[in-house]
């Protein structure tokens, strides 16, 4: 797995958490893992297809999500599944949006699918037998985990670049 594909996601997540949670962040140790992903809390799974393909999982405990929600809205929030889902979804959208911006400006073209939220005990389908990079980002609200599996499809990019430019 190429670090230049992973790094934009890590940088974007770190910047998004620091800015939106208005506090310092610290990137923990990176580790590689193969096999199905075991969630720590509520997870958003985002699939990417195009010049690069793979998936990103953003994962946080419900109590962390509630603290995040209170900061994002600037108000007390009720402890509900809906609030937790929306919080994880919003964080995932911001992280992916910022990562996509960095990768797109480097010339990569791909489609990002809307986040799928996983809250039940089911494993994350599609992540089986996938080599992924896992890291925790420490925030003022608690740890937020990222699981990133991304591959570069050079052939597809070469094919696209070889197409004649229409006038």
């Amino acid at each position, binding site marked *: 797995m190429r670090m230049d594909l992973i790094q934009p996601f890590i940088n974007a997540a770190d910047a998004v958490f620091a*800015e939106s949670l208005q506090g310092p962040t610290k990137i923990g140790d990176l580790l590689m893992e193969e096999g199905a992903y075991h969630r720590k809390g509520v997870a958003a799974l985002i699939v990417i297809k195009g010049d690069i393909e793979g998936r990103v999982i953003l994962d946080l405990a419900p109590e962390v999500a509630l603290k995040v929600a209170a900061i*994002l809205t600037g108000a007390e929030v009720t402890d509900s599944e809906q609030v937790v889902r929306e919080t994880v979804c*919003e964080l995932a959208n911001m992280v992916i949006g910022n990562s996509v*911006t960095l990768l797109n*400006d480097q010339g990569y073209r791909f489609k990002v699918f809307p986040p799928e939220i996983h809250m039940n005990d089911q494993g994350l389908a599609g992540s089986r037998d996938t080599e992924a990079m896992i890291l925790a980002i420490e925030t003022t609200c608690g740890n937020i985990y990222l699981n990133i599996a991304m591959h570069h499809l050079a052939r597809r990019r070469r094919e696209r670049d070889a197409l004649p430019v229409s006038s």
Partner: protein
Amino acid sequence: MPQFAALLRKDNQPVRYLVVDDSVFARKNIIKMVQLFGGEIAGEAGDGLTAIAEYNRTKPDIVLMDITMPQMEGIEAVERIVRQYPEARIVMVSSVGYQENILAALQKGAKHFVQKPVKPEVLYEILRYVLSDDPALAGAPVALAGEHRS
């Protein structure tokens, strides 16, 4: 959060905003900021189609518009609103900030772009710029008690 001088219309009335985003959290966050700037919420919408209906109904001074939304995306909504109301002042607010996206929005008639997560001081400066571009709306920022100008 820092305090800001109120952005007012030329008639000293609060600037009226239409906030469009499919995320309730994002809307609440933006609303909190524009209220901090002395603004008033004319309406809210969670998709492009509703945004058009809300624009027709409320005729806001400024629209803050997300890009990626269900039913109708923000850029298409901008195009339709500007076609009907060429004077519309629309600022795109999105986490997806690559050049093609920004250019497409500007070509359809958006006035500016701000990337999420939104920094209040950045949004404030953009709103001040967009308002100053319209002589009918531009009013000098009015100091709030105890505030410091950013």
